[in-house]
């Protein structure tokens, strides 16, 4: 889904923010790979490279944590994701 592209799936659709950009998400969970593809469509990672995905404003108290490859997390209205591949050096 692209910003502002609401598929119109009704009551289960929530707004999430990926690298500040707004998306509508119509599933209860989102996977590492799905978040990455929202952030960087058409930019596959090189072998051995891993994107860091950190979220906040999710479920479970403060609702902050990180997503690992193959992992999923429950989404919540206005949940925030940071996705980046750059390393501090």
């Amino acid at each position, binding site marked *: 889904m692209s910003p502002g592209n609401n598929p119109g799936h009704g009551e289960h659709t929530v707004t999430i923010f990926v690298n*500040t950009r707004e998306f509508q998400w119509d599933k209860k969970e989102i996977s590492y790979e799905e978040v990455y593809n929202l952030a960087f469509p058409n930019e596959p990672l090189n072998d051995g490279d891993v994107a860091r995905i950190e979220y*906040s*404003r999710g479920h479970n108290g403060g609702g*902050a944590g990180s997503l690992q490859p193959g992992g999923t997390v429950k989404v919540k209205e*206005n949940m925030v994701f940071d996705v980046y591949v*750059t*390393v*501090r050096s």
Partner: protein
Amino acid sequence: MRETRIVPEFVTSFPAELEPGHLYVSARFSTAAHLCACGCGREVITPLSPAQWVLTFDGTVTIWPSIGNWALPCQSHYVIDRGTIKWARNFTCDEIQLNRESDHRILDAVPASQGRWWGRLLRRLTGH
């Protein structure tokens, strides 16, 4: 073309298409974005927190520590220092691996959201 200068632009959300030579800073989400300074056109995201990158604004922008784009085909490495791109040396494959492991280990030890209270406060105040 390699950039030599970068100017800040304060936004809520990053635009769909970034312009070269601009550093987009979102206080609401406590993160920044720019197009790789080497000119390859790839988007570089640098979340802002004491555990990640630290932004200083004095009319110009500084981001510390340096930006290692090892996952991009260009593998560029530079510092944004008072609005100027200062190029850093290339890393070997071994150095890249060590750097990546070290950086991720540090981040795993310190929750990235720690210290990002201003973003949470701003979102709470604005209701978003």
